[in-house]
Structures are given as C-alpha cells and as structure tokens.
C-alpha cells in the first residue's frame, strides 16, 4: 500500500490535495453551519482548519424563509432557513477582510435564482483576493427558485457549472443533492461541465409535523434534514460519487466525530465538511481534526493520504468472524 510510517515523535502529514485546491488538512466547515466564520472565532482558531465554507451568498441580500425555520428530529435537525444571507457586496466589504485577518482558507458558497446569477457571482468573486475556491450550491432544498431545481437535473446542473466555469479560474466545487435517483449521473454531468471537485451531500428533503396542533413544524412545510441521522445516506452518496468520477470528492453529512470523518475518508472522500456538529459543539471541527491526527499516530500513518480511499470491499466476513474481539482492532494492513 506504500504507507509512510510516522517517524517517532513527528506529526503525521495531514495535507490533502484536491486537484487545484491544496489544504493543510482535510477538515473544513460546511456552508450554512458556520456563519461567515467570525461567529465561531471565540471557540475555533480558524487558521487551524483546512478551510471554511462560508454561508451561501447571493447577488443581493436574501431575507430567508418565514419562521419557524427549525425543527429537531431524532438525531437530526430539519431546517428551512431559505438561504438568508447578507449578499455578496456586504460579504466582500464587511466579512471577508476580518476573515482574512484570522488566517482562514476561505471557500465561498454561491447560489442564484438563474444560471446567469451564478455566473455573475463567480465573476465578481474571482477578482477578490483571499478566496481559495467557489462552492456552487445547486442542492438547497429550501428555495423555490434555483437551489435543488438545478441540482436534480443533470442537464441543468451542467449548465450552471459551465456558465460559472467560463467566468472564473478559481477551483470549482459543486455541492450535490442526495435528493436524486442517481447521484452518479449528476456527478458525471457537472465534472464534464468543468467542476474540479465535488462535495456531497447537501441536506435530505424531509418533513416534521406536530400531532397535537396538526400542523407542519416548519412554515415552509418541507425542509432539509442534517445531522447524524443522515450519515449513512451521505456515506453511500460519497461512495457512489467516488466510483463515478475521478475528481476529488468532499464528504458531508452527519459528521460529529473524528471516527465519522474517517469513515468518509475511507470510502474515498479527500476531505470532509463538518456541518450540524458545529451547532452542537462550537469546537467540533477542531476536535475532529485533533482526532484524525491522533488516529494517524495510533495507526502509524505518516500521511492521511495513505488512508484515503482504502476501503476493502473485496472482503466478505463469514458469520464466525463477527465474534472477534473488536476492542483490539487488527493493525492497519
């Protein structure tokens, strides 16, 4: 397998390369769950993270959906925020300079009502120093125009990505929706259209109702489910996407701990984004990063890249093997 063993006392190499985007480590924060980064600066040294993906930006400020916008579900969070954001202009003027001072690698998530709006946003942000990449949001389930409408149709998804590609040289990440029959089809379409990297998944379209008032719990009726409840779905989507395309993939969905993150890396994600866990524990992203480093040391891994995509699917466990003592995991092959 060509592992680079960790020399005694030296830190494992956590750098990952996502095509044109180089990260100091594979832990990013997910858009919509970390504000503009500054909201968490009392808890997290932003410069330690692989990067932060800021709250999705539109050309003009958006007020978002009417409340109630949140409902908690077993092991999950249902939201219908509706992409409330300050708009690209205010972000560039007010938020970005402060964020840059903190030394964070900044990825901007963009969203539009039309293909042209996505392209215009890309052009605007391309001329601004301090932005490492753009993440194209074609998968938000909470808006009527744009969002998931683009992300569930391979042709439309490709149109958005191609239009954005023409207007920027920044690395492009396309964020995919799980609310499709075949995530692989969408993945192939957007990569062919010029996406350098894929991130998956966005929230899962879902619903919560109140049996006493007989009303939906969200004013929007439907929302996007996130948190630990969706991790197995996300893991499957990442696995299928990794099989379908050759570009790097970022795993997102219910990552709460370093072990969760490692599962995504194991199936082939080159990096992960931590989302809802930030709400639960403001330091979650750094705890996950520290946990990955500890894991590498424990496993004798010199570099995290030695671990990425090493899932062994050829192995079929006979029933008898399941009785083995899992508290002593076998050494890494």
């Amino acid at each position, binding site marked *: 397998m060509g592992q680079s063993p960790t020399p005694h006392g030296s830190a494992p190499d956590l750098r990952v390369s996502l095509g044109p985007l180089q990260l100091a480590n594979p832990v990013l924060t997910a858009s919509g769950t970390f504000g503009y980064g500054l909201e968490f600066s009392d808890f997290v040294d932003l410069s330690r993270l692989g990067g932060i993906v800021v709250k999705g930006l539109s050309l003009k400020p958006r007020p*978002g959906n009417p409340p109630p916008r949140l409902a908690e579900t077993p092991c999950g969070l249902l939201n219908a925020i509706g992409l409330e954001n300050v708009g690209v202009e205010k972000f560039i003027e007010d938020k970005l300079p402060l964020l840059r001072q903190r030394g964070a690698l900044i990825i901007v998530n963009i969203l539009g009502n039309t293909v042209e709006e996505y392209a215009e946003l890309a052009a605007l942000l391309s001329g601004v120093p301090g932005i490492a990449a753009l993440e194209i949001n074609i998968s938000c389930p909470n808006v009527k125009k744009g969002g998931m409408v683009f992300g569930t149709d391979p042709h439309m998804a490709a149109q958005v990505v191609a239009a954005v590609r023409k207007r920027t040289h920044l690395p492009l990440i396309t964020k995919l929706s799980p609310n499709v029959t075949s995530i692989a089809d969408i993945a192939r379409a957007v990569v062919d259209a010029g996406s350098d990297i894929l991130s998956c998944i966005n929230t899962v379209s879902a619903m919560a109702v109140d049996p006493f008032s007989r009303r939906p719990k969200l004013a929007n009726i439907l929302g996007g489910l996130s948190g630990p409840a969706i991790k197995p779905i996300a893991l499957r989507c990442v696995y299928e996407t990794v099989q379908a395309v050759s570009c790097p993939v970022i795993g997102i969905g219910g990552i709460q701990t370093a072990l969760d993150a490692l599962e995504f890396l194991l199936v082939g994600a080159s990096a992960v984004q931590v989302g809802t866990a930030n*709400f639960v524990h403001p330091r979650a992203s750094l705890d996950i990063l520290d946990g990955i480093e500890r894991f590498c040391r424990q496993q004798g891994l010199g570099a995290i890249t030695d671990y990425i995509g090493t899932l062994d699917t050829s192995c079929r466990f006979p029933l008898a093997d399941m009785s083995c003592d899992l508290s002593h995991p076998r050494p890494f092959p």
Partner: protein
Amino acid sequence: MPRVQEKAKILENHKEAEGIYRLVLYAPRIVPTARPGQFVMVRVASEGSDPLLARPFSFHRLHKEDGLFELLVRVVGRGTQLLSQSRPGSPLQVVGPLGRGFTLPTSAQETVFFVAGGIGIAPLQALLDHVLTTTHKDHPERVYLFYGVRTAGEFISLNSLKRTGIHLVLSTDDGSTGQSGTVVEAVQQSVKDLSSMPERLYACGSLPMQVSLARWVQGRNIFVEMSLESMMACGLGACLGCALPAVHADGPEVEHYLHVCQDGPVLDPRRIRWDKVQPLMVRPQTYVSL
C-alpha cells in the same frame, strides 16, 4: 465579550413547582461577564445524539462572587425533561454568555415595571436582583413586579420576593391567588389606579402575553424591553434559525427578520411584526409523553 464553552457542574436541582425545576450550576468561566437578560446554550445529553441540540436558557440568577448561575427549567420537551432529571455532581456542556442582555436602569428616580408571565420570571429575576442592589437599592418602592401564572401552585420564590420591599402584584388565570385574569390586565389596572405610566417596563412571558403587551405599549412613550424566545440550533448567530418577523424602516412590505440569539433575546416588542408570528414559533405548553 468572550463567549466560552464550559463543562458546568450541577450543584443543585430543586423542583420548584409542577414541571418547573431550578438548577444551580458552577461555571466560573461563563459567570464573570454574564449580564441579566443574556442566555446560555445547555447541552442536555453529553453523550449520544438524541436529543441533538443544546437548549437556550436565560440566566435566572447570577452569583458572580461564587462563579454560579441559576436556571429555571420548565419541562416542555424531551430535552428539558432530561435536564430536569439531571443529578447534582454531573456536568453539563454550557456555552455562553450569549445574546444581548437588558438595558440596565440608570436612575433611582425611574419607576420600573417588571411583567412576568409564568416561566417568564426566569430572566426578570436576574434583572430584579441587579436593580435592587444598584439603582433602586434604597427605593424598592419604585419597583413593581407583576407576576401572573395560570394557578397559584405555579408561583416561584414568592417568599423571597415578598421580602424585597417592592410592589408585588400577583395574578392568576383561575383567580386562585391575587387578581383574577392575565398579568397584562393587572398592569393595565395598575396604571389606571396610579394615573401614571412607568418610565421603564421589562417583560417576559408566553406568546399571548407578549402579543397583548406589545399591543398595549404600542404608541406609548415608555422604555420597553421584552425577553423573547425562539427555536435555536446554535445560539451564536450562525444557523439563522431563530428569526422573528420584524418591522423594517422601509415599511411593512419589506420582508425583514431579527434573530433572537444575536439581536436579542431582549428586544423592544415594537420592533416585532406580531401579526406574522406563528403560534408554533414558541414551544408547546406542556410535555406530553404517550
């Protein structure tokens, strides 16, 4: 002001009334900068993912010299039910202090009204403690606490409130103690009796109380602040879930929201579009286990 995440230790957990518990927490890193009206996010389950999110609670009492604060917990869901069962000695994950607190009175000359509906006494007690040890220390008679609940058994801390020297006006929906009717009706009656308006009014209570009070203060020249609640995921201004429809300077046709965690939880109720507030934005009245 720095916000911190702290493993706070539960020192006491008392049942104060049916479904209402008072927790005393030791949190020496959070308490020093905490102010009346601010809140903390309390994670109920330190292990596991259900319930997933932390819950927001206002400071009920602050004991800065001891590094302690108190919370009043009303059982409204599974999270608060678990919290009510927490044992002394066990730790809780707490993030705070968060949000904007009350604007503190500056003059003993001001007549100050506190209007508490049910569990709404929670944040008002911290402010009352502050006022009675600072501005109104020598003039408790200029402080009025209107405290209304559904029935007499739901009152909290009545004995200590009676000892403060303030005007304590109690009301119950069922007439079992004090005036019969709502706490807002008690305020209106008092203003009539006194033939004067207070300079300041601080309030916290149920949605119907908030709506009723907001209607009453509309157009009146009183300084008013109300502690509001909304479903939150983070409490830090990141999730944007705790939005409340708000008045915009450009007119009612402009869609505009305030966020309880950052713009509040203490807000002038005249800034909120109460006509657009849906009943489900506040939590149900009682926890039902079927």
